[in-house]
């Protein structure tokens, strides 16, 4: 059994209401059932909004930078608590996809150097993830009625998430709305964690 001095990290990304948190909760439950200690990070956009930063189609370079850096800090804090596995609800690249989608939504462009800076910031985290799961929007699945999402923006985020992953050739697993796809993602996550975590 390989022991490591850093926890296993599994990140998810994808547009809103595509089952990311539910998927992580299921992975969390399965891991704990096997005795693995798990920490889950998340609620970044909500926390950003609570300190006055814009969200959704109003995202700016500042809100994106806050979300990426706060996400990094959350992951470090979770690791410092001694968790065997850290489940990251929104891997760093996700924030960049949200920003790109917001800019396209508003027909705006970001300064090239600023864009590059954010891209490098997000990219610094990619080697940290042992597995990246990317949810795929299924337009047939109705959105939770509790949310008043802009459908066009949601679609744009989906396109930018998968566009960035392809562009940067980042290894990841796509997770569709099909329950079998969710199960496959959970099985893969468990396999990685159970091989490596000090159970």
């Amino acid at each position, binding site marked *: 059994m390989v022991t490591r001095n850093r926890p296993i990290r599994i990140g998810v990304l994808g547009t809103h209401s595509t089952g990311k948190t539910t998927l992580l909760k299921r992975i969390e439950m399965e891991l704990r059932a096997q005795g693995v200690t798990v920490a889950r990070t998340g609620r970044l956009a909500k926390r950003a909004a609570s300190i006055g930063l814009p969200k959704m189609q109003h995202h700016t370079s500042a809100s994106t930078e806050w979300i990426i850096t706060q996400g990094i800090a959350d992951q470090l804090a979770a690791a410092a608590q001694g968790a065997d596995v850290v489940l990251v609800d929104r891997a760093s690249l996700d924030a960049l996809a949200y920003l790109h989608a917001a800019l396209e939504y508003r027909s705006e462009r970001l300064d090239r150097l600023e864009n590059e800076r954010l891209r490098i910031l997000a990219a610094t985290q990619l080697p940290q993830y042992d597995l990246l799961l990317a949810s795929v929007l299924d337009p047939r699945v109705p959105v939770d009625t509790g949310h008043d999402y802009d459908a066009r923006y949601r679609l744009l985020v989906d396109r930018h998430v998968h566009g960035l992953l392809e562009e940067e050739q980042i290894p990841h697993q796509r997770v569709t709305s099909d329950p079998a796809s969710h199960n496959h993602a959970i099985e893969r996550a468990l*396999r990685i964690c159970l091989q490596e975590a000090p159970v």
Partner: protein
Amino acid sequence: MNVPVAPHGRALPILSPQKIRGLKPSLADVIEYRKSGLSLNWIVGCPLECGYCVRHLFDNFEMKVPRRLMSDEEAVASLVHHRYFEPHRTPIQLLNRATDPMLPVVKPHLVNVLRHLDNQGLTNHVLIITRWRVEPEDCAVLNSFKNLRLTVLVTHSAIDNERIEPVDSNIAATSLRTLFDHAERYRTVLYWRPIVPGLNDTDAHLERARELSAHAHATVFTGLFFRKEIAAYYEAHGLPLPYEDTARRKIMPQAAEKRILDYFHTPEHLTAPWGALFRKTSCAVAYAHGEADYNGHYGIRELCTICPQEQLALCRSAWRKPDLAEVTERARELGATGTVEVTERAIIVEGLDEPPRYYLQHGYGYQCHDRAKPHHHRQHGRAPIGWKAENGTTA
């Protein structure tokens, strides 16, 4: 889902004495005498996060990864040397309070304890309650015990609000079928609970439960245990409160019970019009093993109105009103104060807490009630919420 399982390596860690001291004393105490038996809970912590879990009452809901309080051998010794343990008689429950016994990390310890008990030649009833995965290879292990009277109860609620019931109900449904298909020496019971009107009592829910009950040796249905700690959790998480009030006992409103009974009623089955459906856990367990109820519920006749005739006959033949002088002497030894009575329904005592009352109850197979907590007619073991007051017989 084909779930990979961690190679069975090291044993579940034992919490340090300091951490155990930090637990609520009632949780750190591994043995508790409950109505369904002497309950051994040497492992605490659970990832399943069921909103209505009794772990709220022990301030333990946040502990998501199981840990042991002592070794399996020490747990066995604590049980069999407990002052209220009687070989071959006292019903036993394992890990029914603070974790799920079939979690992969818990299961090896459960099996270890079962093996120790079985190897001692004990024939006591042992109840295991789970809502997690049970595989055919687990059934083979459960069938391998030669002496214990083992029952696996599978909890199934079918509540589809993920914040109240995060565990996929299909897991329990599959486990029940697997258990039933492979049962040789053990029995399996569908533990249909908690039933909350408006949440999981639609016709579709009832139909699903009836279909599942065909894959069990017996079925028990019960309501929600809704204490103030559980209500506080619901409120803090923005969950709809199922009842305005909390209660000491489980809440099973009359209208909900009637719907269930009507749904299961098949008058053409003359000797068992409700099939193997029971109101009380011990009744279902006893039926599944072909025995009389060890809790003496036969004395509370209104509980028996749905029982199969063959079961009633068994309970009737085993049910003996204990001798008053003998009961009085034993109750006094246990610390009873005031008058001891033996009525047609129960032994009535004063000054005895639940453990000694259950000790008497299981010893005589006859209900034992506290005079200060009367069991009103048709409200045995139920909260008064959802029931019209009736001037029936008390205790």
